[in-house]
């Protein structure tokens, strides 16, 4: 299965989720009805009547629905903050080059390597400093607001290969479209769990009051106590059902992520080793945060102690996961604090031959291979120190991006320097410092550098981000036109969401290409016009590849950047299998003359990225360019 098929499966899980959720709510209503009816029969024992009372059922049903939907809406409102909101809720702190030690640096390197190798914008990394268990998670509505969270325990007790295995597992969740499903699940689960939570809350607050206030109004207390107990009983049913849903929806995705991690790193020792260390350490993978329950299906390994509900565990048992990766495993966990040395990573293999057909390009989307990761690692290691330091933290990352935007012609550049000086005097020194190294890296590094800068840039506060955005737009507009490379760069930066802001939620899915006919025509026309070669031929090749007959090449003046941005936003909501057709058509257009300039390739990557389909850059040439610039 390729990227698009995995995404499609994840999307269809949503339907299953809704069905299970409906069943769970119906069960909750019945349980609540039985508890309430039982209570009434019990209190009115003198005048017994039938347990069946439709009006009571209606009242209880509506009440339960109100509570459940209230709980869901409350949680979903909280989740508007996206992946960052989850990480902060679990007590995470944002990690960047400026505030971490050597091991934190290593973690950031692992994440950057994998982002560079897959063509994904670098996700923000959160460290859960108070968590000693070994665990990790990926969360976000889209890859653009993805965050990866790692516990302090994982950072301290896993070696590099094991940590890489865990991060590869999380990247699989990002690439396979599991994160959105997981977030929806968090929202729905909260609705189901909320009855029990309220019951516990009421009990706890009553205990507090009992200690403080003595005995007053015994009857009222008894009534409240009874309600709380009823809520807890019904809530327990909710917990069981919630666990069942988490298990039904998530277990297969966990196996898939484990398998992908092996495929990405071709190093079963990494992820299996991490699982063994979890099995062998005292605190295992448990999370101490009280908020862990509702997030327990999106972490790397089980976050909560085994309980009554463990037949419905969110994660398959460790043994089973390890055996699937290492069939010959002897069943022994790695004792704590002595991580086994893992096999070295295989080095890059030969380049795939015959790279220039659309099918091959589509096959590359969202894929990671060990060779790519290794090459990405050496490309990053080869970066000049000035650049490597700068892209590690927000202050320098801004300078790198601005440095990339400075024009090559003198008058425009002078104008741009003036704009910079007017905006923030300190920044101009930093830009002046990093620009020579950035320019030396060549055009091939332009977009990969921007991708790497995304994570630190997302650490800007919304106000700082707005100021930076305005400066970017001003620099781009300095020569009164938007060229291809500027457009690609701007397109990527347009969708950056600061971790303190609210990420854009994807709209409802579009299932049919016919519904986006105009957008398709605009996209293919713009790409054909940008190709620089034979516009007609490029457009013909692209539109033939798309199962949407009768598209016509739009005139130059209708292909303006603003309209293209809007079209891409809409096309990004296509279902995965339709996206594959669209990306394939774009590739056919770009490859029609068998010559692909760096600008063209980057433009294609920016478009595919905007559609949510990360296309890996040519990491081998990146590594070569980095060595060239450093040497």
């Amino acid at each position: 299965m390729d990227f698009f098929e995995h995404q499609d499966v994840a999307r269809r899980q949503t339907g299953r989720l809704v069905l299970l959720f409906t069943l769970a709510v119906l069960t909750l209503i019945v349980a609540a009805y039985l508890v309430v009816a039982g209570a009434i029969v019990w209190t009115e024992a003198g005048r017994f009547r039938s347990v069946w009372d439709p009006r009571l059922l209606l009242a209880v049903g509506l009440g339960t629905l109100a509570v459940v939907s209230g709980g869901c809406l409350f949680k979903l409102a909280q989740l508007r903050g996206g992946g960052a909101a989850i990480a902060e809720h679990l007590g995470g702190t944002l990690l960047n080059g400026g505030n971490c030690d050597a091991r934190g640096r290593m973690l950031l390197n692992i994440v950057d390597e994998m982002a560079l190798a897959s063509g994904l914008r670098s996700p923000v990394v959160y460290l859960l400093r108070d968590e000693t268990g070994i665990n990790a998670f990926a969360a976000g509505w889209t890859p653009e607001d993805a965050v990866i969270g790692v516990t302090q325990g994982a950072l301290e007790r896993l070696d590099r290969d094991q940590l890489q295995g865990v991060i590869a597992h999380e990247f699989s969740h990002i690439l396979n479209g599991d994160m959105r499903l997981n977030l929806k699940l968090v929202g729905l689960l909260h609705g189901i769990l909320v009855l029990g939570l309220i019951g516990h809350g009421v009990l706890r607050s009553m205990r507090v009051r009992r200690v403080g206030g003595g005995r007053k109004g015994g009857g009222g207390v008894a009534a409240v106590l009874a309600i709380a107990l009823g809520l807890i009983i019904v809530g327990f049913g909710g917990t069981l059902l919630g666990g069942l849903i988490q298990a039904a929806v998530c277990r297969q995705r966990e196996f898939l992520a484990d398998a992908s991690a092996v495929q990405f790193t071709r190093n079963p020792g990494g992820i299996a080793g991490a699982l063994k260390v979890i099995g062998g350490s005292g605190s295992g993978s448990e999370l101490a945060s009280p908020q862990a329950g509702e997030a327990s299906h999106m972490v790397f390994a089980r976050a909560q102690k085994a309980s009554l509900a463990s037949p419905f565990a969110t994660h398959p048992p460790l043994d089973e996961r390890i055996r699937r990766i290492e069939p010959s495993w002897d069943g022994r966990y790695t004792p704590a604090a002595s991580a086994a040395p893992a096999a070295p990573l295989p080095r890059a293999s030969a380049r795939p031959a015959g790279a220039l057909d659309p099918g091959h390009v589509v096959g590359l989307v969202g894929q990671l291979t060990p060779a790519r990761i290794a090459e990405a690692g050496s490309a990053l290691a080869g970066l000049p120190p000035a650049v490597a330091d700068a892209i590690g933290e927000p202050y320098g990352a801004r300078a790198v991006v601005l440095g990339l935007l400075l024009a090559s012609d003198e008058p425009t550049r002078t104008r741009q320097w003036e704009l910079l000086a007017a905006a923030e005097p300190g920044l101009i020194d930093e830009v002046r410092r990093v620009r020579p190294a950035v320019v030396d890296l060549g055009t091939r590094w332009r977009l990969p550098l921007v991708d790497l800068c995304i994570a630190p840039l997302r650490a800007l506060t919304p106000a700082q981000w707005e100021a930076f955005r305005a400066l970017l737009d001003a620099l781009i507009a300095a020569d009164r036109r938007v060229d291809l490379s500027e457009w690609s760069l701007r397109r990527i930066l347009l969708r950056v969401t600061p971790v303190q802001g609210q990420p854009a939620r994807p709209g409802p899915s579009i299932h049919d290409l016919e519904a986006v006919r105009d957008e398709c025509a605009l996209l293919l026309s713009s790409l054909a016009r940008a190709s620089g070669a034979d516009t007609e031929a490029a457009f013909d090749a692209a539109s033939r590849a798309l199962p949407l007959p009768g598209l016509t090449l739009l005139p130059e003046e209708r292909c303006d950047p603003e309209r293209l941005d809007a079209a891409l936003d809409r096309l990004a909501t296509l279902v995965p299998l339709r996206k594959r057709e669209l990306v394939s058509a774009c590739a056919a257009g770009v490859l029609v003359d068998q010559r692909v300039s760096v600008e063209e390739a980057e433009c294609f990557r920016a478009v595919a990225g905007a559609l949510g389909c990360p296309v890996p850059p040519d990491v081998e040439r990146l590594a070569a360019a980095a060595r060239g610039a450093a040497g």
Partner: protein
Amino acid sequence: MSTALLVLLALVAIGLILIFVIVGIFNRLVTLKNRFANAFAQIEVQLKRRYDLIPNLVETAKGYIKHERETLEAVIAARNQAVAGLGRAAQTPTDPAAIKALNSAEAGLSGALGRLFAVAEAYPDLKANQNMMAIQEELTSTENKVSFARQAYNDAVTAYNTYKQTFPPVVVASMFGHGQDAALLEFEDKAAIAQPPKVAF
């Protein structure tokens, strides 16, 4: 079904809505507080770097400025005070008193540095010293980063203070231990660098 039961159900429903709202407010307050505490960690890194540079600066200047011992000593004293202030603020970045103390220590340091640079104007050899120029350069770049990180911290603090003062939170904030407004970092980090000796390029 009796009216009493209906009333009870209505009360329970209202209670639930209240609980949702209050839990939401509580969570938001905690998030916003954590954010500015984390933002302080960022500025701490930069301020430390700044404080580490100052002894080097003084050491280099000592070789040239013979007759201005008090000025040099004042810089070191102000620097030590600022280091202590930073240590206290880093432990409890949510305590407005600690932040205000850091503000005044920083103001003292800026003043002392400003006087040192004014004195240095009279020593052309010092201004031409390679080491001095390198430290100056490093100090300037650190100043810029401090100012940037301070901006982020102040944004986060403002978001917290503003949220606390809007309607529903203002009722319950003090009950949850969010009574006090967080303090802004208000030192003039540009003062020391505003009139540096014009090192020739």
